[in-house]
């Protein structure tokens, strides 16, 4: 097919391997956006990714960049180690909500507080996907999971943790926004945010995180299409989309 006809094709920053994600899982969308951004910025050959423990444990199979695989929750610490010795490389972590907001809470908060020049892609799908849909720190009140079978009872199981709001209070955080992957418009906005988060890093403007409201059709027990509706109707009210922190220097970035 003539290249002048081409409107969109699979990013070259992706490897040829099909993902292991369930059909309709928006992890794949988030991966694709990161790949597109790395490619557009021309930094694929100087990027080192840090994969988490959780559904994205195999993220290293899909990006055509160097990759390391962190212990559960420790990706920001590993990324710190890499970035400190190789400050001219692009270093990102890709973490789910169990990884980042539960077991890795200490690592993410302090990476942000130190203003580490790393980019964090945070997938919030309100449950532990890889282990079969247990309650996560982001599980909505009343939401049924395999470890909150009667619905999350906030009296005994606490309330969801809002990471973007929390991290935006830290001086070291340069860029911290929440986006959603539930429709084409929001996916476009998410991509722009991811681009800004990487631009923040290459300009040395501090810690950058993009929280992405995502789906988990399999563990939610919904079709992929209904999962997107669930994000729109239930997750966005609990986790409002928005720019939680954009430092003045980052506001000047033109994409």
């Amino acid at each position, binding site marked *: *097919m*003539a290249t*002048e*006809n*081409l*409107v*969109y*094709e*699979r*990013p070259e920053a*992706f490897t*040829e391997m*099909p*993902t292991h*994600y*369930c*059909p*309709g*899982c*928006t*992890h*794949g*969308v988030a991966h*694709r956006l990161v*790949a597109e951004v790395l490619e557009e910025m021309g930094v694929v050959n100087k990027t080192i990714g840090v994969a988490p423990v959780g559904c994205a444990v195999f993220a290293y199979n899909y990006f055509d960049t160097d990759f390391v695989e962190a212990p559960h929750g420790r990706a920001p610490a590993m990324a710190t180690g890499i970035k400190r010795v190789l400050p001219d490389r692009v270093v990102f972590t890709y973490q789910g909500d169990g990884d980042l907001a539960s077991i890795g809470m200490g690592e993410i908060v302090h990476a942000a507080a130190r203003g580490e020049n790393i980019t964090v892609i945070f997938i919030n799908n309100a449950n532990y996907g890889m282990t079969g849909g247990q309650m996560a720190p982001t599980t909505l009140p009343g939401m049924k999971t395999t470890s909150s079978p009667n619905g999350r009872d906030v009296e005994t199981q606490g309330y969801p943790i809002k990471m973007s709001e929390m991290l935006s209070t830290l001086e070291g955080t340069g860029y911290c926004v929440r986006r959603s992957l539930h*429709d*084409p418009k929001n*996916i*476009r906005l998410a991509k722009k945010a991811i681009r800004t988060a990487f631009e923040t890093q290459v300009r040395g403007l501090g810690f950058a995180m993009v929280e992405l409201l995502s789906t988990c*059709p399999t563990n939610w027990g919904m*079709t*992929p*299409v209904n999962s*997107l509706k669930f994000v729109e109707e239930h997750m966005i009210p609990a986790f409002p989309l928005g720019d939680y922190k954009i430092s003045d220097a980052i506001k000047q970035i033109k994409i």
Partner: protein
Amino acid sequence: MAVKGWIEVSDTYCKGCELCISACPQGVMELDMARLTPKGYHPAHTFKEGCTGCAICAIVCPDAAITVFRETTKAVPVPA
């Protein structure tokens, strides 16, 4: 006249999740129930005319399975 486009859906990547089908503004996509991918999914395809090459299907596709093309519109010289 509407812009004419077309897509190619990769059997390697498509998992038949139907997100593209519900997102397609032209309503020209469906699962191809007559075919199975090597992984056993019915892949998405366009089943009638009307694709404009808007790429919304590709934007929502979690598996980067869709390549989008669009007919090039040649600029018609305006008569002087």
